[in-house]
């Protein structure tokens, strides 16, 4: 990446960065194993990582594990020191609460917590376990933990749409996004079905949908990490692993076709859909009405709508497209403008300058 132009961060950015670095130095590191369903092998991977770290001389303790333990995990568990959770009874229910006081006293360097989405009984120091984990991190204790997709709060509606079920406990997605590391535990659905012991038969199709969802969530987390890394190193990247589509609208565009196509492309690529228009002074009222109608449709389709201001249409669009790391730019054209023959029109200029993204041209709707 040496050939990339460096971007000098401004003073506020630098300060934020220094503060973040300071926090990071004293704070423990959070590593999360993310699975798309039970029995995908998260616990095994998590304890296996703990075992490896212990073998390399790190001070590792187990602070929580899940109810049923398979023989291979049970064997690994016997090698660890444990600070077991405290069992608290409340309203006829057993709660397993991380023993924060004991952990603070013991102060290991790494703490293994199997199962992140648990709630604590009313009157506890924190209502939910992930908040306990956050306190461990604040005290400089690193945490390795595991969580399933169905417990990510922001994903629960979609999971319920797929499976018809909703897990009672959840963690905020933001907590996952802020983890230092997240590792995906992936396996084909068949492996899970074969492993099922309780007789319930999960539907392979549902599992595949959950699997895709978990992978895309992980990709978003990784994309965020990539951006953070590039920002903190002052690299202005013009690329990414994600498809980003910018639909550029004018009053005369065939907005319906452009937006629907953009929406479909963004969905299939699991990319982003952005919509922009360049503000024009003295827009005739009928054009203003058309444009507003286009923008309403864009918002209906869930696009981010941006109003751009600038003297020159081409350079305004170009600058925005680069800043947004756009990979495809959608433009409308009349197709038979007489100026095209002799003068370099705005579309030609955009095509000439677009060396980072594709330009897709959509014919304007036939005027009747």
């Amino acid at each position, binding site marked *: 990446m040496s050939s*990339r132009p460096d971007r000098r961060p401004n003073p506020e950015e630098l300060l934020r960065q220094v503060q973040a670095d300071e926090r990071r130095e004293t704070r423990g590191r959070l590593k999360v194993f993310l699975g798309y369903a039970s029995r995908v092998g998260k616990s095994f991977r998590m304890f296996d990582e703990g075992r490896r770290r212990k073998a390399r001389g790190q001070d590792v303790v187990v602070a929580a594990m899940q109810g049923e333990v398979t023989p291979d995990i049970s064997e690994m568990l016997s090698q660890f020191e444990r600070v077991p959770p405290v069992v608290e009874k409340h309203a006829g229910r057993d709660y397993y609460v991380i023993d924060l006081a004991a952990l603070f006293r013991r102060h290991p360097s790494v703490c293994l917590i199997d199962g992140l989405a648990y709630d604590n009984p009313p009157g506890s120091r924190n209502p939910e376990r992930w908040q306990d984990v956050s306190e461990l991190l604040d005290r400089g204790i690193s945490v390795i933990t595991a969580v399933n997709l169905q417990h990510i709060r922001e994903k629960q509606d979609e999971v319920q749409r797929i499976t018809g079920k909703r897990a009672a406990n959840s963690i905020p997605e933001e907590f996952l996004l802020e983890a230092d590391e997240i590792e995906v535990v992936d396996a084909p659905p068949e492996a899970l079905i074969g492993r099922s012991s309780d007789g319930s038969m999960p539907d392979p199709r*549902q599992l595949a949908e959950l699997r*895709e969802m978990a992978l895309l969530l*992980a990709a978003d987390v990784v994309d965020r990490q990539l951006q953070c890394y590039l920002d903190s190193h002052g690299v202005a990247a013009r690329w990414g692993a994600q498809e980003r589509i910018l639909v550029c609208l004018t009053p005369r565009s065939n907005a319906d076709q452009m937006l629907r196509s953009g929406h479909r492309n963004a969905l*299939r690529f699991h990319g982003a859909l952005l919509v922009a228009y360049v503000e024009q002074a003295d827009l005739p009222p009928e054009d203003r009405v058309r444009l507003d109608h286009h923008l309403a449709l864009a918002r209906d389709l869930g696009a981010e709508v941006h109003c751009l201001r600038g003297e020159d249409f081409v350079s305004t669009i170009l600058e925005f497209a680069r800043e947004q790391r756009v990979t495809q730019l959608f433009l409308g054209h009349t197709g038979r403008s007489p100026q095209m023959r002799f003068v370099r029109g705005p579309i030609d200029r955009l095509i000439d300058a677009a060396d980072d*993204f594709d330009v897709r041209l959509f014919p304007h709707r036939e005027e009747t």
Partner: protein
Amino acid sequence: VSEEKRGKLKVYMGYAAGVGKTYRMLSEAQDLRRQGVDIVIGYFEPHGRKETIALTEGLETIPRRVIAYGGSNFEEMDTDAVLRRKPAVALVDEFAHTNVPGCDRVKRWQDVRILLDAGIDVLTTMNVQHLESLNDQVWHVTGVRVRETIPDWVVDEADEVVFVDLTPRALRNRLERGVVYQQEKARHAMENFFTEANLTALREMAIRHTAHEVEERLLTAPRAAAAVETGEQGAEGAARGGQPAAGKERILICLTGRPSSAFLIRRGKRVADYLQADCLALHIATGPDGREAVERHLSFARNLRIETHVMEAADVPGAIAAFARAQNITQIFMGRSQPRPWWKLLSETIVQRVVRESHDMQITIVAERRR
């Protein structure tokens, strides 16, 4: 000849050397062996990694075939020997490998397809950067032009693609500890290809690609009768169902002898794959010049399973527009027109004329992304 069922292919997908693909594959091979499955190692690349080598214990290995080339001996999978042995499952490391000249087939994935045809299940490993469709993106991100590539359709044919993950931080720790490569090579790797930014970007590509493979299988698999049908099935549901309301898209790639055509082909095919669109390539020949380069691009396109057409015409844009209309094309992919000499500045470029003549179609002008 008895009608044999084709073997199943499972691909362990990673994003770099050392993430644990072979380790994971061998662990599963050991599970299968314990279950009594007849499994052999067709090819395994030890790379001197102790923990991985330990996992081959107890597994039968088919001896490799030695091939002399250029005064040295090279070892490749002995495909015929695996066929004769005919196990239920064969383990074949490094799917993207190119065989040494003198083998029956150029690529290892071709050997794997022979095994599958014979009804043998195959487990194999690869990294995302070996996918043909990601070649330019990988180069753009990392500066490395990956030479050993696999056409996407070969991986799409796999019954299962499993993502093998390891965080870039953990991978770099492994490199530092000398687990992946020897110290000298490891240091060099960490300063070049294995930078945190490169690894993070490649990892994102691998995760997104695995999600895509999962989705492809969901879209093509018959829907189970018991599937939950609650919730809205709005625009999103329709688009996810893969059936655009206005019928299937058909993409036409206009290729020339210019070097940028390779990029154009990969990009057009990738978009077509994601949109589940038909993909055609067309070359309009105006004279005998540059036939060789054009032939290369046409055969590259055919390798990616793109239907290719060649036509002779003096009027290139007119011929493209006519062909596109006759073939019900919905989107045309073209490269940028070359800079013109001053005496032609007042005439239209080919792109401009195609835009004018195919005024009812979408036209995509693909940028040759430079680093």
